[in-house]
């Protein structure tokens, strides 16, 4: 199914006429009565309030309509009515699993608008915390994915046990486990104590031991191979056209990692590799996350080795009442789920004129139907799990 060199022009754009058969055509052809099953917002396996209306012919999915918006909190309109500093804590609530990296993306955008420089130690701290958030998010995802596959919570609890150790570090640094509100425009808010850095370094050193145990439990498991290989195949050309980014795109073999492309922050100083998949199915997406966690551990050990001393906040940076001059800025980072971007349009006032978030979860969700066609309900739940969406980010 892996089409040869992706000729972008020839591939039908996903937003044109739906390529799959319409429900009416399918119905007339089979004279079978299609069972319309709605896996509603309160379904135990959808990650948060997300609804999938699937039309089933027997076990096979013929049509799947995702419905979301149940968690819409009007984040962008609120941000346009509050000051730049005041909407920083709201960015924690976007993707509530990785608040540190979302804070960084927003801080990056405002710093670009203000033309604000950031001291070295703060840049290192930002890279450390972003990579730790990536490990937290990926261990969360891998845990939830196996929860859908049916083990009674065992892999989820192992993954959460390790995630808790990271989150305790976040709590002792920023004060809150998941709503860290740690980055500011021009640096970080709190300087980590040497004990904190030592504790973080030991945690990073024995994290790979947990990953090996996790892989021994699951990666060779025959049932796991049978349930995930060849399921939810995503064609690289269609993925690029649909704007999918992050591990889902790299699992289809497209080499696009913003940490390498933009080299924002101090990422150019660390050597790490970007894993790529060949088949673009659920198994590849799972393995991609495991390999990315190993790469993050490599980055973190380098960062801990040569983090410099010095101020964590640019002395000239204002603490509040930011009034950037009129203009616009778009900053993006390689979030655990994909390219997370913030677009700010300022008219010189204390509040941004326009505030837009590029949510990777929502954009990765657009091809859900195409991945699920032809598979059964059990697979559609696994495919949804492998795309890794967080409804806070999808609905904003």
């Amino acid at each position, binding site marked *: 199914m892996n089409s040869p060199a992706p000729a972008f022009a020839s591939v039908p754009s996903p937003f044109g006429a739906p390529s799959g058969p319409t429900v009416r055509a399918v119905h007339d052809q089979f004279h079978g009565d299609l069972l319309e099953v709605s896996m509603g917002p309160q379904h135990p396996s959808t990650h948060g309030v997300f609804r999938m209306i699937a039309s089933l012919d027997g076990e096979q999915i013929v049509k799947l309509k995702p419905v979301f918006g149940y968690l819409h909190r009007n984040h962008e309109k609120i941000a346009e009515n*509050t*000051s730049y*500093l*005041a*909407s*920083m*804590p*709201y960015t*924690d609530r976007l993707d509530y699993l990785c608040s540190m990296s979302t804070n960084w993306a927003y801080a990056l955008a405002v710093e670009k608008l203000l033309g604000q420089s950031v001291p070295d130690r703060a840049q290192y701290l930002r890279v450390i915390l972003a990579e730790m958030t990536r490990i937290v998010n990926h261990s969360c995802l891998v845990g939830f994915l196996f929860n859908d596959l049916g083990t009674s919570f*065992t892999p989820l609890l*192992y993954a959460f*046990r390790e995630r*808790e150790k990271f989150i*305790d570090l976040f*709590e*002792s*640094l*920023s*004060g*809150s486990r998941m*709503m860290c*509100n740690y980055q500011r425009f021009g640096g970080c*808010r*709190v300087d980590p104590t040497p004990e904190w850095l030592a504790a973080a370094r030991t945690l990073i050193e024995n994290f790979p031991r947990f990953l090996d*145990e996790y892989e*021994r*439990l*699951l*990666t*060779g*498991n*025959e*049932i*796991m*191979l049978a349930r995930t290989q060849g399921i939810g195949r995503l064609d690289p050309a269609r993925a690029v056209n649909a704007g999918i980014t992050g591990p889902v795109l790299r699992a289809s073999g497209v080499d696009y990692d913003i940490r390498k492309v933009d080299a924002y922050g101090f990422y150019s100083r660390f050597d790490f590799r970007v894993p790529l998949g060949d088949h673009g199915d659920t198994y590849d997406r799972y393995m991609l996350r495991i390999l990315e966690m190993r790469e993050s551990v490599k980055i973190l050990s380098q960062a801990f080795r040569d983090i410099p001393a010095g101020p964590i906040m640019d002395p000239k940076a204002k*603490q*509040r009442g930011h009034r950037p001059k009129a203009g616009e800025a778009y900053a993006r980072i390689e979030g655990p789920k994909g390219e997370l971007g913030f677009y700010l349009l300022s008219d010189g006032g204390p509040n941004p004129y326009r505030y837009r978030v590029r949510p990777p979860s929502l954009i990765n969700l657009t091809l859900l139907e195409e991945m699920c066609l032809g598979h059964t309900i059990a697979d559609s739940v696994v495919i949804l799990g492998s795309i890794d969406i967080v409804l806070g980010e999808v609905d904003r």
Partner: protein
Amino acid sequence: MLGSGIIKGLAVTAKNFLGSYHDPARMVTVEYPEQPTVLPEAYRNFPFLISEDAADPMGTLRCVSCQICEKECPPQCIVIEKSKDKKPDATGKPQLYPLTFNIDISVCMSCQICVEVCPFDAIKMDKVFEVAVTNRFDGLLLTRDQLAKPNSYYHDIHPAEAAEVDERLAAERKAAEEKAKAAAAAKAAAAAAKATPTPKPSDGPTEASAKGGTAA
């Protein structure tokens, strides 16, 4: 061989099963009501107001109701009403004080921006997380006297941070006193000079010492 992956998986869960009896890294459960959970020092929950001494909390509030936190609070959950008269604060300088200082902790998201922007270190984050109440409306609207807690309590919950804040405040007060003493000495000298030569209209150093506390 078919099934070798499954057997390896079973071995891992068996190891975890045995590990959960002796390996502290594996058995992480804390039985909450009996064993208290250990909170890190930087943990923050809802804010509280600091008063200098415990005896008269309302009298010695550090807050001078400058309402910066009310403006900067993202969900706008702080309501402050200024007093008409002034009251001398710790450094003896007459300052306003808040007649009402309400925080609606059902709206507050404990983001501690109010602590950041407060120039007088009057508001800090508390560590009390058992705040369940039976009445949702006025049960969660904390008024001034429920919010005010003595500085000694601040030392209990955030020892390192409290020590550093007190150091800074003591330094500022010393600086303010020296300035006041210098001003008083200069005034005394001017008065003495004025008493000996013919009185000349000299305004001399005015009484106003540095504008209240540390400038923003």
